[in-house]
């Protein structure tokens, strides 16, 4: 399953009980709502293990970070988890600047 909104391509891959959301492109105020919608749909469908693959994320700003923070909190409230995987250099830098590396699980960085 995949969807496009100009500069961001979102692809969801099911691996066992885990949903891996691949982000390819730029996450900004224009595209962040699409990620929120995708994660909300997965959560409503009962997913308790969501991984955001950030390896191909070319840009992220505060609107993108806010979606990640909010999704992480909502998943925890549902008894699930949201993890970040292989953040690109630009994503890793922002996660470090904001201190999110200490609060959200990151694998493959």
């Amino acid at each position, binding site marked *: 399953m995949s969807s496009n909104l100009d500069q961001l391509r979102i692809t969801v891959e099911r691996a066992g009980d885990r949903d891996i959301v691949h982000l390819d492109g*730029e996450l900004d*105020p224009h595209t962040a709502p699409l990620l929120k919608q995708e994660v909300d749909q997965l959560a409503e469908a009962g997913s308790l293990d969501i991984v955001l693959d950030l390896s191909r994320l070319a*840009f992220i*700003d505060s*609107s993108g*970070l806010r979606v990640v923070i909010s999704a992480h909190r909502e998943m925890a409230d549902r008894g699930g988890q949201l993890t970040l995987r292989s953040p690109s250099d630009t994503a890793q*830098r*922002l996660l470090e*600047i*904001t201190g999110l590396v200490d609060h959200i699980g990151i694998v493959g960085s």
Partner: protein
Amino acid sequence: MTSVSVPLNDTGRPRVETDIDPEVRLLIPATSRYLRLARLTAAGLAGDLGYSVDAIEDLRIAVDELCAAIIEDTPNPAQLELSYRESDGGLVVEGTCRARSTKAPDLHSVARELLNMLADEYSIGAIDGHRNFRLVKYAERPQG
């Protein structure tokens, strides 16, 4: 041994000789769809000025955050007017667009945190039915 002398300006920042025009203007629809163009222009000019990859990345994010903040309350349709110019070793970006409210934009705490970390100087406000910002990002001092 080779030595390289880096000329500094009055503020101690590296002086960058550049052929870019004194000012570049960009007029785009004031919607989030076009923020990418504002970022691309900033990145292109900073690249011409010899900014490091990290400084260019800082600038892209800062421009994006400030543009996003001032277009939040625009009447539809509206235009976002941006100017970019090199000044005293730094790249100055100014933006303005019409706004429904006369109130200065409220920056989200995450946006403010990023701007405080990534911009060398910035201001954001409202005047005469317009919201505006000013951002300065200097080229980083070369290591060593």
